[in-house]
């Protein structure tokens, strides 16, 4: 990476840099904000349909005016984009066609009509038609001052409107019926959100083009979903991701002029999204796998301690050292796994290594007794309150014994009247030392 280019870029001395960066940040942040709501309404792909559907509108504006007036094209784009969204809603409401098929159908048909109009314009030989390509494939770097003003105003309209109706949109996105009960004008809000989506697409499309516009709406919002459950924060994070991608895209095409801004914006925000899918705390793939792995280890540990307890029960001596063979015979377990578990339990101070095997420490005994106790309490509970036969309760207890909290344990004991024996007539261990 070129240090000088980086410094030049972030000094914003070049007015072109200023325009492009400001434009990109406004476009992508406002698109991401609207995208967060469409994502929550499970309409993530409507952005794709709208972005394709603006083509006939742009062409019509061009055919009528015969000039490349950006304002007229935006109006045309807005009109057909809006029509497309209404068509999707109408088709899904009035027939058995599902949302995905309606989106694909509207997308391809509107774009097809646009293609027909486009060939017409090309044949007319109007030189100004080259500007139409920007609408389809995106050319953010060619934004000039006066265009930027239009986009800046549109983005501000989006930002302000979303902020004003924030609470209503939140309720609408999560629970339509509740929104209705609260007296929100649900249909009008729907229409407003639809219009905002179209506006976001129309504003962003010159930057990234028809195909990639869907990403401006979906990708930052999908990434943000992995960092929080709070919708306010989600919208803010989505906007921040979008803005960052906007700056990064502008910088990359500044440092390497052959590189297109729009696609790099999309790649950067996709990488943020992939990073979030994998590594976001709690919801990411890796942290979730790690949690599962840790839970499995806790279960193996507890089951191994239980083996010592069960063996101890046979000769009423819980402190005896046990050999590996004895342990394997008592419960089917693979030897390498058992060895690893025993090593871990020694390290945790639950077991101690002895000349001829392993034995429970005081702490290990307490832990083992508690797991067995929970198992038997649960068996008793199932047998007494659920009317499940005594020989059917074991498997369920085998799972729940690792989950029950001390509070539930107390409640169980209380409900069962502080019992001594489980349904198989074996003693339920109380606490205490070896």
């Amino acid at each position, binding site marked *: 990476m070129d240090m000088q280019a980086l410094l030049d870029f972030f000094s914003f001395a070049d007015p072109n840099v200023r325009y492009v960066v400001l434009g990109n940040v406004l476009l992508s942040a406002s698109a991401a904000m609207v995208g967060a709501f469409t*994502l929550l309404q*499970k*309409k*993530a*792909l409507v952005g*794709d349909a709208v972005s*394709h559907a603006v083509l006939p509108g742009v062409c019509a504006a061009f055919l009528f005016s015969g000039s490349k007036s950006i304002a007229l094209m935006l109006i045309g784009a807005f009109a057909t984009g809006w029509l497309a969204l209404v068509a999707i809603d109408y*088709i899904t409401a*009035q*027939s058995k*066609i*599902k949302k*995905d*098929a309606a*989106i*694909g*159908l509207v*997308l*391809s*048909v*509107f*774009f*097809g*009509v*646009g*293609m*027909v*109009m*486009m*060939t*017409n314009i090309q*044949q007319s030989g109007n030189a100004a038609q080259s500007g139409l390509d920007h609408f*389809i*494939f995106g050319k953010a770097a060619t934004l000039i001052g006066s265009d930027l003003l239009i986009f800046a105003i549109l983005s501000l309209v989006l930002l302000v409107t979303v902020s004003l109706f924030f609470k209503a949109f939140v309720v609408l996105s999560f629970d339509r019926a509740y929104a209705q009960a609260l007296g929100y004008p649900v249909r009008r809000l729907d229409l407003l959100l639809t219009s905002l989506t179209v506006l976001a697409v129309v504003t962003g499309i010159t930057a990234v083009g*028809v*195909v*990639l516009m*869907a*990403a401006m*709406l*979906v*990708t930052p919002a*999908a990434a943000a*979903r*992995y960092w929080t459950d709070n919708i306010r924060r989600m919208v803010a994070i989505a906007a921040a991701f979008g803005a960052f991608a906007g700056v990064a895209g502008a910088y990359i095409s500044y440092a390497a002029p*052959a*590189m*297109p801004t*729009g*696609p*790099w914006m*999309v*790649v950067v925000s*996709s990488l943020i*999204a992939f990073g979030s*899918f*994998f590594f976001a705390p709690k*919801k*990411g*793939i890796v942290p979730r796998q790690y949690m599962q792995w840790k839970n499995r280890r806790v279960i193996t540990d507890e089951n191994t301690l239980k083996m010592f307890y069960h063996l101890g029960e046979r000769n009423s001596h819980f402190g005896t050292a046990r050999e590996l063979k004895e342990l394997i015979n008592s419960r089917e377990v693979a030897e390498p796994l058992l060895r690893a578990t025993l090593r871990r339990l020694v390290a945790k101070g639950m077991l101690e290594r002895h000349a001829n095997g392993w034995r429970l420490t005081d702490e290990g005994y307490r832990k083992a007794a508690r797991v067995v106790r929970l198992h038997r309490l649960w068996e008793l509970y199932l047998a007494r309150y659920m009317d499940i036969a005594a020989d059917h309760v074991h498997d369920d207890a085998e799972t729940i014994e690792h989950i029950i909290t001390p509070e539930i344990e107390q409640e169980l004991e209380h409900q069962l009247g502080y019992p001594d024996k489980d349904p198989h007539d074996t003693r339920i261990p109380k606490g205490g030392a070896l």
Partner: protein
Amino acid sequence: MIIAFWIILTGALVAVTCGMLGCFLILRKMSMVGDAISHAVLPGIVIAFLLSGSRDTLPMLLGAGATGLIATFLIEYFHRRANLQTDASIGVTFTFLFAVGIILISGFAGEIDLDLDCVLYGEIAYVPIDLWVTADGTVMGPRPVYILSAVLLIVALFIKLGYKELQLTSFDPAFASALGISTALWHYLLMAAVSLTTVSSFESVGAILVIAFLIGPPATAYLMTHDLKQMLAITAVLGIFIAFTGYWLAYWLNASIAGCMAAVTGLCFTAAFLSLRRIPKPSPTASEEPIG
């Protein structure tokens, strides 16, 4: 006239192949996967072009097929492992791959003679001049027609042989699993068929028409019948009709052929939608009278 014949034949072959697979996509609520694949093939084509240095069909098909399958795998992976909702998974994946494709084209602009327009629009008008000439100089007709016929044959065989499995896994995945049919296997087989079709079709008809053919005729047929076999048959007939009418409309308007075929697809759907919409209501006039 012979030009018209070849173009209509090409359109009809694509329409029938896409339509038959589209029936299953619609039933599985996976229509947009076709959209995703048809865009996600771009980086595969560019990489194949860079590696082979030519526009030969085979490397292109392999490259495009590979990225098409990668796209379906990623969509499925994010959906299952990261709990990402399907539509978002589709949206994130295909735009990423398409963006990578455009960046590759820009980065190797000097070495690539690929027109981005043609990926979206296709060049069905050029089909008649893309001739297959054998070693001894015999002209066998347009090359795409042979390739697309082969693909149609493969897809038809696939549906014929796997009909029961495809039907069961589409309508009742749980029941299919209970019978020992692997839903994952048939998912990926169907996706492979969609990739193959998309990839071999879009060079001649473009991504947009592929989507129109994947979704339009099956959606129209879906309105008209409840029976899967009838749906497949109606889709095939509609596809041929659209290819024929679309071509003559384009001829008459002197406009984009792919665009006109997509527009006719829309007209067919609209006609079916408007004429069938009122059927569930027994008497439309009665409902307008005030109650009580």
